[in-house]
């Protein structure tokens, strides 16, 4: 039987992690294909509801990544984001949502190798956890356009 390929959605900031992932590319560091990046200006912009909606859309895991503390392009967006995550993660855990499926990281524009590692580790961990059927079964999910039309 084919290995389970988790669907992972990453929300990353434009200035550090997105650029870091660009560097992963220019450095040709191969890694798993499971992650789809959604680019936002700053981790401060990442609404906690987006993370919920990612699971509702059928994600098995979510990556949230931005600039290291003190390196934020906008000075303090990541500090605000960090507070939000501390509370949000605890709340999810308290509600029994599997918080292990949300991977938070700081990846700078210089850390191309780290991004590849974050992706590979996330894929490995989420694969071990299996599909997030518990959440997917809450409500029927419409298959994505791609799975219906493009294989």
């Amino acid at each position, binding site marked *: 039987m084919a290995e389970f*390929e988790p*669907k992972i*959605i990453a929300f990353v900031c434009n200035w550090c992690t*997105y*650029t870091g*992932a*660009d*560097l*992963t*590319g*220019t450095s*040709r*560091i*191969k*890694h798993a*294909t499971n992650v*789809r*990046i*959604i*680019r*936002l*200006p*700053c981790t*401060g*912009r*990442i*609404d*906690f509801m*987006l993370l919920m*909606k*990612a699971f509702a*859309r059928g*994600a098995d895991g979510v990556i949230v990544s931005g600039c290291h503390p003190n390196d934020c*392009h*906008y*000075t*303090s*967006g990541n500090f*605000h*984001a960090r507070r*939000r995550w501390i509370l949000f993660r605890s709340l999810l855990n308290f509600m029994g949502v599997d918080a292990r499926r949300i991977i938070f990281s700081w990846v700078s524009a210089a850390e191309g190798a780290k991004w*590849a590692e974050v992706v590979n580790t996330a894929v490995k961990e989420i694969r071990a956890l299996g599909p997030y059927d518990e959440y997917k079964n809450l409500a029927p999910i419409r298959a*994505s*356009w*791609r799975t219906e*039309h*493009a*294989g």
Partner: protein
Amino acid sequence: MSRIGVFVCHCGENISATVDCAGVAEAMSRVPGVVHSVDYKYMCSDPGQTMIKDAIKEKKLDGVVVSACSPHMHEPTFRRACAEAGLNPYLCEMANIREHCSWVHEKSEATTLKAIDLVHKMVEKVKKNQPLYSIKVPVTKTALVLGGGIAGIQAALDIANAGHKVVMVERSPSIGGHMSQLSETFPTLDCSQCILTPRMVEVAQHPNITLYTYSELESMDGFIGNFKVRIRKKARCVDEKLCTGCGLCTTKCPTKKIPSEFNEGLGMRSAIYVPFPQAVPNKPVIDKTQCTFFLKGKCKVCEKVCPTKAIRYDQEDEIIEVDIGAIVLATGFNVLGAEHFPEYGYGRYRDVIQGLQFERIASASGPTSGAIRRPSDGTEPETIVFIACAGSRDEAKGIPYCSKICCMYTAKHAMLYKHKVHHGKAYVFYMDIRAGGKMYEEFVRRAIEEDDVKYIRGRVSRIYEEDGKLIVKGADTLLGHQAIEIRADMVVLASAAVANDGAEELAQKLHVSYDPYHFFAEAHPKLRPVETNTAGIFLAGACQAPRDIPETVSQASGAASKVAALFSQSELTREPVIAVVNRIAPPLYSTCTGCALCVPACPYQAIEMEEIKNRDGVVVKRAAKINPGLCQGCGTCVALCRVKAIDLQGFSNEQVFAELMAL
């Protein structure tokens, strides 16, 4: 229904080697709303761009997705191409299938499927894109330069010579800063005053420069191109228009025993004083904390002797308001005070002095007219010890950083001493010699080899007085930590350069950030070294970090060129990626609840509360308002807003949501 065009780039073989580009284009052609989907070898080439432009016109596209490299690479290219074909550039998005896909995965079906996802999500995003228009902000072409040291002087002159107005504010009675205190400068040993004074005069006489000395910044409002600043011009108690600078008042003033700040306490000044003979402006100021009239209510000698009747005891502080387009921060540095060196006896032994004091002693205009003399008894020191890294690179003193200038000025001090006291012995205790700079290493070698200055690698543990000598105890780490004891006549500490007094307070007034040592923080340590995170505020000189004169001057010119570039246009064009508060029909007017919780969260102080009025002028609602001049588009407020009343143009809730739902 949307009319989207998808353009899949092969990037030579960079993408097509692992991704089936034709397959991606074919898949996209079946997405509802896509009316045109092609692949091509080089989308960014001239023919590639022409393909896009032609398709926009022929197929009447209302959205374009270029699936190629990172938007950091070519987003401006393709947006420009769209604009040239008459499509709003913000209706063009890029799907990154090179850096984020073809380059990081092997050729496989999964790689192509990922590419399809990445392109498809951008197609769904573009459907929700709105045309955006660059933001135009008017620019007031007057610069404010805070600080009148060499950094401020250079920046002011460069900006003024570019034809723009400059307002310079200096908090002490004269411009000149620390450089005016220096004797000679490394590595050329030319006289500091000789090269500085002409520039000081040029500032005073420049038709484009308005100079406010003995003044401080009171407050700052507004944003790039449109700052409003209030300057407090402290009362000099002298009518500057009448005063001719004859100096009679200073010579007749009966209070003469006040330690001179300019001479670092080694000389004396009167209560009404000009800090130094070459001061600009050459107008005295009354030190109210020392003047007999202000302390006891009588004296008025200066008033009696003044030939032009320029003394004004009742003069009050004046608040001056100016409109400013850009600000250059050049407030300089300070040196670590005496209280930090109990082990060296600084402050206890009069012949233990710090570097700036030595500058005054060595200076021809100083208290000893340039003769090297001990402060205690005025004798010529036979043996002198210089201690580098006094405080610097010392976690225990809270200064882990290198003060950068000390290695060079210590070599200079030792050299100046040897040039004046030929038979004298000069020792330098150092940790490392950092002499990176043009002719710097050669300069230090000269001190060691030609002027016979003894360099000892090691730290001084203790200094104490014995029989009129200063006993310097240390160790030579190059000789296996051999204990060393030198009986010195004088000790000079290269005390650490630290942030200037009030730097933190000033940073808060200006909304610029500062580092843990209270030096102002640059926007990017490498690529934006003279900008701050607040648009329109620039940095020059040692207020950012310790630096020497050549670096300071080049940075000041750099800051000035940034200002000149800003002033080269009457309007500033900014990316419209900013947050906006929604407006909806009455009775809500906006879904904003007016809770104002976003206000403290904004890193740029760009949010304020406004009153929404109806047609009768009655206030119907209070709502947040985002200043488009200040907003940098981080979106922190957007995620914070419970009611989604704030949205971010270019990364709106609908756009991001559409992307997510496509996956």
